[in-house]
């Protein structure tokens, strides 16, 4: 069975792409720098919004809402920003054209590229929840940790799918970094991270529900308050659906933009 799986081309492409992306990342990023980013980013993003909340409403319970929301959203640095930039980085390194002329299936190729960022997102969220509990005093005594773990895993997978969809656009554009930056932070506004989605104007709420993070923040808060996996199943399924749709649309966009870029000769434009 192992032999069959190893010889299966999509698996081989996925695995070699994931390994290569990991090695390429740490060829320029020192592990100490990666670790610093992992520990610093969640702390200061959470601190900013928690202190803002304490300034607005001293003594209220809004801190837990904001700390949990940001603990989850901070993974966007890996799952959206880094993943969305995959195609642009290939352009900058001059490797996009050689990559595109290979007969390898694009799907396992780019999902493999994003593999490390899924693990990175999970690690970031775990650090975020540690800060939520230890630094910002979120009561996690009733937390259903199985449900929370599933929510974290599903959120990271779904948001990486969303990041890949955005990255497809970067194949045709000069750079995906602009989109990456916009969607990195827009989640703070539309995904129920700092306040419920219902506070937003009605016309904006469909955008919120198209992004998997919105379901993730809802489910994570419920898991922290003790909801079981069974109770959370409907929200988690909606998040999986949002992530799957993102991946499917992203793949179609990728193929479309690849054809367009081939026709216009814009692969190396940056």
């Amino acid at each position, binding site marked *: 069975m192992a032999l069959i799986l190893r010889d299966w081309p999509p698996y081989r492409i996925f695995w070699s792409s994931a390994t290569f992306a990991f090695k390429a990342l740490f060829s*320029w*990023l*020192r592990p100490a*720098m*990666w670790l*610093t*980013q992992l520990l*610093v*980013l969640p702390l*200061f*993003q959470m*601190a*900013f*919004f928690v*202190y*803002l*909340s*304490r*300034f*607005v*409403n001293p003594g209220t319970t809004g801190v837990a809402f904001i700390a949990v929301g940001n603990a989850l959203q901070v993974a966007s*640095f890996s799952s959206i920003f880094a993943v969305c930039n995959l195609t642009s980085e290939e352009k*900058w390194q001059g490797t996009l054209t050689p990559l595109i002329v290979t007969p390898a299936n694009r799907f396992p190729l780019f999902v493999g590229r994003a593999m490390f960022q899924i693990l990175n997102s999970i690690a970031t969220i775990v650090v975020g929840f540690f800060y939520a509990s230890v630094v910002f005093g979120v009561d996690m005594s009733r937390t259903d940790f199985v449900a929370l773990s599933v929510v974290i895993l599903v959120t990271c997978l779904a948001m990486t799918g969303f990041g890949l969809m955005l990255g497809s656009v970067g194949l045709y554009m000069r750079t995906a*970094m*602009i989109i990456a*930056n*916009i969607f*990195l*932070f*827009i989640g*703070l*506004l539309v995904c129920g991270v*700092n*306040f419920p989605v219902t*506070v937003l104007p009605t016309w904006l709420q469909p955008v919120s529900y198209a992004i998997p993070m919105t379901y993730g923040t809802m489910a994570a808060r419920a898991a922290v308050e003790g909801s079981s996996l069974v109770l959370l199943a409907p929200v988690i399924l909606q998040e999986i659906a949002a992530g799957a749709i993102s991946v499917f649309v992203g793949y179609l966009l990728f193929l479309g933009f690849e054809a367009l870029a081939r026709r216009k000769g814009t692969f190396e434009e940056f």
Partner: protein
Amino acid sequence: MTRLQTFWGSFRMSLLHFFADPQWIIPNIIAPFVFTIVALILFRDVSGSVALYAVLGGGMMGMWGNTLYGSGFALAFDRWNGTIEYVLGTPSRLVWIIAGRSASNAVLGLANALAIVLVVAIGYGAFFAIADPILFLLALVLTLTSLSALGVVFCSAFLLSRSAQVMTNGLEMPIYVASGSMFPVALLPFWSHPLSFSLGPTWGIDAMRYAADATYVGLGFGYWTDVLVVLASAIVYLTIGFWLFIVVENKVRRDASLTEY
């Protein structure tokens, strides 16, 4: 005169680069813009001068975002484009080239700040009157100078590292928090206060609030003390930045590690 020419040439070139591809303003201002809107939504049920905190804080964050990203990416782009050897190979000192770029980023940062204030004020109706426009302008310019000087200090470290982009992302939020851009520094843990008070922007934003709101009681030292501290911080940052650049420039030349990325 040569230094001034270098400074001006770098300033002009940096602006030309920006106008050749102005989309790069988006990464610089998106975080402050979103943070300001989130703050205004959180402040929606609160009366008083909170709009002042949100809008001025957003403006200050816009200036810092631009300065930091400008500094961080100034050398990273040179590395990626293969032009950093030529920049360092010129007879001009690198620090004057960076100073020109930082000044250019500061000017764009001011435009960012104004854009954030205008969009938020018009979009959300978060208008506020400025009690003393002249003192406000003085505090604004000094805060901008202090932020740019801080950018020069960080930029010297970015020259040493291949991870400038990562450091840039990591340094954005700590300054927003430590300077109390949108909330009083007093809310932060006591042990962090020395760090907050060592940052020029902390005093700069306090001075701007004093000038904008006659009833404001901030750090408690008054407008002129704040302004003097901002000025002193800018001088200290520039001194450190110039010294660091000489050290770092010599180091990368000696180690031949400039183009490593």
